[in-house]
């Protein structure tokens, strides 16, 4: 449904896309995961005909973005990183405008706008200006605008960036129930959790290149899904703890101790079960800990695992961090 072949795009000396190739099947939700500056938005812009690649080809629903951009525009619905709604217009007017611009008659546009407002739970605020909407409502209106013509391909560029956790969950639900419905979805995100939740297949990109691709289970297997962090009470316990980690988790653990020799992190493919066993054995062998934690890997961890170095442009925001910043 979407095929990218060796796409390249430079901005001066900066290589935004450095030979990206992807093949996205019909009906799939495909997650493009990467930090800021990895090339996610550039890929989206090429696919939505906003910019032309320097070289390479991109086909969307069988149409080339280079030779037949109009046909591509007819086949896609785009929801951008910053909700592209007209703040001065009401939610209803926004949808009517988009429908009219897709070439629908006035009557069809009005009917479709009403229908979408109801589906997206915006009927109550249909007559209010979009400028007065909350972040989550705006995002829903933006998603609704992308679905006006029920396009075969929907492109979502960081659909939850800047949303609070509740609005994020809400948006996820909209994506899985409404956007999904048989369409092919390309979703970009900097949150591993989001790609994991929504996507059937994930490609990790960094510096304009695909560095890993697979189903979310594939990747999680490769990335050491969760991590254990232990803080020891005594430095003497370090040796014993490393032995226990090796015994229970084995090679995937790849434990790392910090310079104090008190704090150890290790991958834990079985998550909770690994942690419980490690704690049980520590207890049995008489090692005490002041802190033990199990965390999901962040995008940074993924990059550390895949490339051996931190992400080139640090996103370093977990969903929780963003929530604190607020909208």
């Amino acid at each position: 449904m979407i095929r990218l072949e060796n796409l390249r795009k430079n901005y001066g000396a900066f290589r935004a896309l450095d030979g990206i190739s992807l093949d996205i099947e019909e009906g799939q939700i495909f997650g493009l995961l990467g930090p800021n500056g990895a090339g996610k938005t550039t890929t989206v812009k090429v696919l939505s005909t906003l910019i032309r690649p320097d070289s390479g080809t991109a086909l969307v629903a069988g149409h080339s973005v280079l030779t037949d951009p109009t046909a591509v525009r007819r086949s896609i619905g785009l929801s951008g990183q910053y909700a592209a709604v007209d703040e001065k217009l009401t939610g209803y007017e926004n949808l009517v405008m988009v429908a009219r611009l897709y070439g629908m008659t006035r009557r069809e546009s009005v009917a479709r706008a009403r229908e979408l407002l109801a589906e997206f739970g915006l009927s109550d605020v249909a007559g209010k200006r979009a400028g007065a909407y909350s972040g989550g409502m705006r995002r829903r209106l933006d998603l609704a605008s992308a679905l006006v013509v029920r396009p075969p391909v929907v492109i979502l560029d960081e659909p939850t960036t800047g949303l609070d956790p509740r609005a994020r969950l809400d948006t996820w639900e909209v994506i899985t129930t409404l956007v999904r419905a048989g369409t092919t979805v390309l979703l970009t995100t900097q949150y591993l959790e989001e790609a994991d939740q929504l996507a059937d297949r994930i490609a990790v990109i960094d510096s304009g290149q695909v560095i890993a691709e697979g189903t979310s289970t594939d990747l999680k297997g490769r990335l050491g899904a969760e991590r254990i962090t232990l803080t020891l009470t005594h430095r003497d316990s370090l040796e014993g703890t490393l032995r226990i980690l090796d015994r229970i988790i084995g090679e995937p653990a790849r434990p790392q101790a910090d310079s104090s020799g008190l704090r150890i992190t290790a991958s834990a493919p079985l998550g909770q079960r690994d942690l419980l066993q490690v704690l049980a054995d520590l207890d049995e062998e008489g090692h005490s800990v002041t802190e033990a934690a199990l965390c999901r890997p962040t995008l940074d961890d993924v990059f550390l695992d895949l490339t051996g170095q931190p992400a080139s442009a640090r996103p370093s925001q977990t969903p929780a961090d963003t929530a604190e910043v607020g909208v």
Partner: protein
Amino acid sequence: MSTLVSAARDSSVIAWRNLLTVRRTPGALVTGVVQPVIFVFLLAFVFGGSLGGGPYREFLIGGILAQTLTFNSSFTAVYLAKDLQLGLIDRFRSLPMSRVAVILGRTSSDLVTSLISVAVTMICGLLIGWRITEGFGSALLGITLLLLFSFAMSWIGAVIALTARSVEVAQSLGLIWLFPVTFISGAFVSIDTLPGPLQAIAAWNPITAVATSVRELFGNAPPAGFITSTGWAADNAVIYAILSCIAVIAVFSPIAVSQYRRISRR
């Protein structure tokens, strides 16, 4: 659907959207309404006394109309630049809509602003003794010419917005050219009092032609002391005004559209 039909349709949708915005932020109209009022009273009563009094006030209105509509091009520059900065423009550009629509929609909806400016200027004119003394048809032709002129100036504003790419730059670029262009003309004075080179520029300045045309069409004679200009542009003011509007549109609209096509933000 043919290209022309879809261009007209999509532009009218954008114009509708622009007018809704204007209706909801009427403050944006203040400049378009207040500026002609200020200029009418300023020129009529501060300069008017030295320039011929009552007859000058009658002469003045045609000039103010041409000047106000030229100034209105800065609205196009500012509001189009604002639109280009919105995330919304990415949506427009990803839609299968006419590539002309965002700009043509703007230059069309700005005609409504201009019509309001024309009405306000005329009301001020009536208050200071200006009258239309020619027939209805002639007056209607005058107003149509003013709108054509305003539409042409709007395309210059559009090119400024697309060149500037930021609201601040569009705002200053959109304003600075207006002062020399409107004042080196026959809008407010008899151009025969200008020094040689300026006189030549003013004689061929389309603003002179527009001001002269509407004075002719509304039946406003120059004050007794004013030397009437001669030359082709002055003798055929209406034709020259129409031709120059068409020329401006023919030059600036393809530039604007090709600039819009080429925009690639970041």
